[in-house]
């Protein structure tokens, strides 16, 4: 039986966001694309278990996350390495924000625990509801809310030094401030 074109289009429409999420999990574009391919193979071979009319993105994200958790995350060292390198995996120069600031943001994001970063990205970037994010992560809605809040608080703390910069001190001064705060 051939795949319903409408279903196929829904899958296709989800791919860009699915890749972005995969990169945020893997910290590596090549592995992320492997993960996306595995996800699509798994999903399309079990397409009968997708209920038409339900949330295709949430379904695909759930499969991808489960695959990542069961296969990729076992390689603990690699994942830790990936988290450390996460900031380097994307090259972007958004118009509204400074490049340095953007780099610092990605570095800060890479410092978050996996659970928190995942929740923050699902809700804040992928655009899922807290309910869908909870369903994707297999946890309670309250857990997602708590993870998102902790992620935001932690990021704000990590980025607080940047705000000092906004009010005057130059980079050299900020480096001293950062160094002083850490010792």
């Amino acid at each position, binding site marked *: 039986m051939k795949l319903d074109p409408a279903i196929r289009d829904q*899958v296709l429409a989800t791919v*860009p966001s699915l890749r972005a999420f995969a990169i945020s999990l893997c910290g590596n574009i090549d592995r992320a694309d492997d993960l996306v391919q595995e996800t699509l193979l798994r999903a399309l071979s079990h397409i009968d278990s997708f209920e038409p009319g339900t949330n295709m993105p949430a379904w695909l994200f759930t499969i991808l996350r489960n695959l990542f958790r069961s296969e990729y995350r076992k390689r603990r060292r690699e994942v830790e390495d990936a988290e450390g390198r996460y900031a380097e995996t994307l090259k972007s120069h*958004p118009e509204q924000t400074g490049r340095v600031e953007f780099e610092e943001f990605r570095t800060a994001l890479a410092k978050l625990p996996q659970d928190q970063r995942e929740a923050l990205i699902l809700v*804040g970037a992928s*655009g899922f509801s*807290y309910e869908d994010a909870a369903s994707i992560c297999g946890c309670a809605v309250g857990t997602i809310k708590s993870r998102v809040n902790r992620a935001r608080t932690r990021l704000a703390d990590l980025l607080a030094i940047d*705000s000092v910069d906004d009010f005057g001190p130059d980079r050299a001064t900020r480096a001293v401030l950062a160094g002083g705060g850490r010792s």
Partner: protein
Amino acid sequence: MGDWEKADQMKNRRTNLETVPPDTDRPDSDKPEAAHPMGRPSTPHKEARLGREVQARIGQQLRAMYDEVVNQGVPPHIADLIRRLSDQD
């Protein structure tokens, strides 16, 4: 891209970080140097403002980073894979 254009529809997704209560007292601005509309000194409000500004930037940068990948659309090899899988018996 051709008929894969529907991939773009994910770009129109909403985001849920914007549930932070809007600050109705002052214009929507990310610029810390923006003068307080009431002309009051900024120092007493600095901490609260910093929190809001940082949160706004977190949301903005998170989406900018994510959209960098989303805007790449569907890579050809993945489009081929889906086409192949959806045509087989």
